[in-house]
């Protein structure tokens, strides 16, 4: 389903435009530095996960990006607009779903969205169409005329996503979008988020639930005590964190063969080969699966399976936190 008329399906992997950029962004509350010289970059049409334990400064960072809180020093830019100096221009492009989002309980879902549409100067006819679309996208068409006070937490969160999308944002900031939801609710929200980049909306979400972040995010930034510990795409981070930047390839063959280990060891780029019975663990500079497969086949030993080891975000996260 196309949410927007102009869903530009820009292919992934192309050199991407940076749409969120912070320079030494710093915030202090009563002398305590909550966000400390943060340098963050988010590319267009990606899902960026801001990770970190409670109190790491995720919400404060988002508030500063939206111009809702003034930084002590440093600057933040969203689509080229300075968040502190031109907050209205940023807010015109950006949607924000607060962690504890609230609706006017006496108004229906539709009326709540209509109010937001009016605040964004969207014409009545246009807002009617848009509201219909976003309510359908989050699967709440049937609940459209029910007072928001009667909604469950999961429904409110979905309505919150609809609410953020009504203004056709170029970028959305979602603060803990899955907090307090049941597994089914989490899945619904994650699916909705995963679809946003296809519609031309960049997503920045904060969370401390690694599993969900891993499912949906392209890049992450890990915050700890207001400092950005690391930033980058998920797979490159995993390699850096856990394998000194190398690929780990596992090869399982029908039988153990010292000959094969030697052959593979000679492939250029292979750093280390370890054998555990039928299982070979290869550490390499790049993804050499094709060459390794060829070597195995040529050695006449039946290949059972081969895979590149994936890094779970848990490991990455724990690694950086032990360092931090």
């Amino acid at each position, binding site marked *: 389903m196309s949410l927007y008329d102009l869903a530009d399906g820009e292919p992934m992997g192309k050199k991407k435009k940076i749409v969120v950029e912070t320079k030494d962004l710093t915030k202090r509350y009563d002398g305590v530095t909550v966000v400390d010289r943060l340098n963050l970059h988010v590319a267009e049409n990606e899902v960026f996960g801001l990770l970190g334990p409670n109190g790491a400064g995720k919400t404060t960072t988002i508030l500063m990006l939206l111009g809702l809180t003034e930084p002590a020093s440093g600057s933040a830019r969203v689509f080229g607009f300075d968040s502190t100096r031109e907050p209205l221009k940023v807010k015109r492009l950006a949607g924000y779903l607060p962690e504890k*989002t*609230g609706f*006017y*309980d*006496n108004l229906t879902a539709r009326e709540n969205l209509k109010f*937001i549409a009016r605040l964004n100067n969207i014409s009545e006819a246009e807002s009617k169409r848009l509201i219909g679309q976003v309510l359908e996208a989050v699967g709440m068409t049937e609940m459209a005329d029910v007072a928001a006070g009667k909604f469950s937490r999961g429904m409110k969160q979905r309505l919150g996503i609809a609410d953020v999308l009504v203004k056709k944002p170029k970028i959305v900031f979602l603060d803990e979008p899955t907090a307090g939801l049941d597994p089914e609710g989490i899945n619904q929200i994650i699916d909705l988020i995963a679809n946003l980049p296809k519609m031309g909306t960049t997503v920045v979400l904060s969370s401390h639930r690694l599993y969900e972040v891993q499912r949906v995010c392209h890049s992450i930034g890990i915050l700890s005590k207001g400092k950005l510990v690391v930033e980058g795409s998920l797979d490159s981070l995993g390699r850096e964190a856990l394998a000194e930047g190398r690929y780990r390839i596992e090869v399982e063959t029908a039988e153990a063969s010292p000959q094969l280990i030697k052959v593979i060891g000679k492939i250029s780029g292979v750093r280390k080969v370890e054998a555990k019975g039928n299982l070979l663990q290869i550490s390499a500079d790049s993804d050499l699966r094709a060459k390794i497969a060829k070597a195995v086949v040529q050695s006449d030993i039946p290949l059972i399976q081969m895979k590149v080891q994936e890094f779970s975000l848990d490991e990455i996260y724990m690694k950086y936190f032990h360092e931090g």
Partner: protein
Amino acid sequence: MFTIFRKELADYFTSIRCLVVLLLVFAVSAMALHAAQVGIRGETGTEFVFLRLFTTPEQTIPALLNFPTIIALFFMPFIGIALGFDAINSERTSGTLSRVLSQPVFRDNVINAKFLASIFTLSIMVATSMLLIAGYGLRIIGVPPSSEEVIRLFIYLVSIIIYGAFWIGLAMLFSVLFRWVGTSLLTSLAFWLFFGLFYIFMVAPALANALAPTADGTAQAAIHNVQLQQLLLRLSPSYLFLESSTVLLLPLVRTLGVITLGEAAYMIPNPLSLGQSLLLAWPHLTILISLTAVCFAVSYVVFMRQEIRAT
């Protein structure tokens, strides 16, 4: 800003809170009418009969219970607090404030629209009340108002709205300062009870007696005491408004200061002209306007610099 204003108005008009206040409006109007109906027949003067609809107390009940006093001491503070006490903090705790502020609206639009919407609602209520009294009063006494009476009533209405705006501003200030709706409500009520009631009836007289004792019984001391008491009383916005409404509604009141009987003997028992009454009430009204402005300005500034995070 108009969007928020419209929403706030719609909220007020559909809320139970406003229904309660409206019922109170009817009760106060009915009571004032009853008092006028019973009391006005005992009056002797023939001038400004229509204005007396609003000022005549029923003889059998304490003089406190006439329309201007009820308006000044009870009605306006009550409506003002009812309309303003949760303006900002209820939106903050329910999480709607950060949602609204993340839209492309200036932050001051939110507080301006809320303030305007509550003043608008308050104006409708007060105007309803006065029109009810005027309409039914006309039926009862059958004397049409002179143009001066109409102008005086209109100025009185405007002054009521300013006074009501002060209470809205105050309640709104507390709603900006305190996170919890309960705290801001209780603080507003405490302010009202103290400055609106206790201060006028107990604290100010007691203070005046302590600072300027009249024990020696000289006229000098008595005058000094009364003057001091008046000065202290005027620190209360309610008293200030009460004095100005007395001047506006009772043209026969010629001075708000202390006059001796000797001086009074030389006064011509004529009502003051509208201009002179206004001149007498002007300082009071100015102070009320500035108090309202101060309350609003402080809430405005605090709100503009406040962190908006929900928790």
